[in-house]
């Protein structure tokens, strides 16, 4: 189960609203490489994952990503506070505003609502862990792209923190993949779907 801790993983205190920047950053809330997708991907992959180390790392990183979702939501919220309809229009935030006002809704920067298409849960540990390595890099590059457009230090600071977390998670998933490949049967080194086939073998079919 999950329990809420009443704090952000990293503090966010944005003095100046900037809906034009929120329009870009919201992609990490509900976009294809965003935090909600990351969290659901890892928490959903856990069930079919072999080995205690891998179950633990997926649970813990999936949980941390929920904290990151909250941070991105806080950034979007604070960037769109106390702005006039005129400023919203000037910033290009008006189309979003029509549907969601100042609510924080999971969409990509390009306007597509969050889609589970980006989750990739295959039930194959090798495929899933490689997917996660790519996902962490995709999230990292999205933060790099956000940093190209964000010049407010109040925003850059937490975004840099989030970017660094992608790098650490990539490292941990890499270690997870190594733990898995080290344990593969040498006769089945290019294993396909090892957890599924192992379960079948144990049942004797």
């Amino acid at each position, binding site marked *: 189960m999950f*329990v*809420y*801790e*009443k*704090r*952000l*993983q*990293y*503090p*966010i*205190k*944005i003095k100046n609203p900037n809906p034009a920047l929120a329009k870009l950053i919201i992609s990490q809330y509900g976009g294809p490489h965003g935090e909600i997708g990351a969290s659901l991907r890892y928490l959903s992959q856990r069930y079919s994952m072999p080995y*205690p*180390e891998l179950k*633990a*790392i997926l649970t*813990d*990183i999936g949980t*941390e990503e929920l904290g990151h979702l*909250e941070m991105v*939501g*806080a950034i979007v*919220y*604070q960037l769109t*506070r*106390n702005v006039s309809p005129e400023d919203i229009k000037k910033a290009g935030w008006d189309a979003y505003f029509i549907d969601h006002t100042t609510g924080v809704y999971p969409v990509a920067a390009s306007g597509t609502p969050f889609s589970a298409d980006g989750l990739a849960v295959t039930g194959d540990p090798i495929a899933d862990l490689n997917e996660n390595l790519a996902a962490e890099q995709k999230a990292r590059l999205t933060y790099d792209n956000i940093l190209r457009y964000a010049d407010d230090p109040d925003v850059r600071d937490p975004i840099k923190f989030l970017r660094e977390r992608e790098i*650490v998670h990539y490292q*941990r998933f890499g*270690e*997870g993949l190594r*733990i898995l490949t080290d344990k593969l049967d040498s006769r089945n080194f290019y294993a396909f779907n090892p957890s599924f086939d192992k379960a079948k073998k144990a049942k004797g079919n």
Partner: protein
Amino acid sequence: MSRQERMMRQLSSMKFAAWELHIFLDTHPGNCEAAKKLEEYRKKISELTREYEEAFGPIHETHNDTSRWAWISGPWPWENEEDDD
């Protein structure tokens, strides 16, 4: 920066260090040095958490003080204290 903010930042940095060690141990479960460091941070965290919660209200739902329902009091984590709502 207010005293509350300063204390929260201190607590957050300790919690961050502990979390880094926690996920490191997921893939290095036999690393005694990391486990020992984690233990040290946890001690500091529980002291600081008690201090913070006594002064500014609960961070955890298990917080002991139910004399008033302080859980609902703001600011919530995503809010700026300057905002008046």
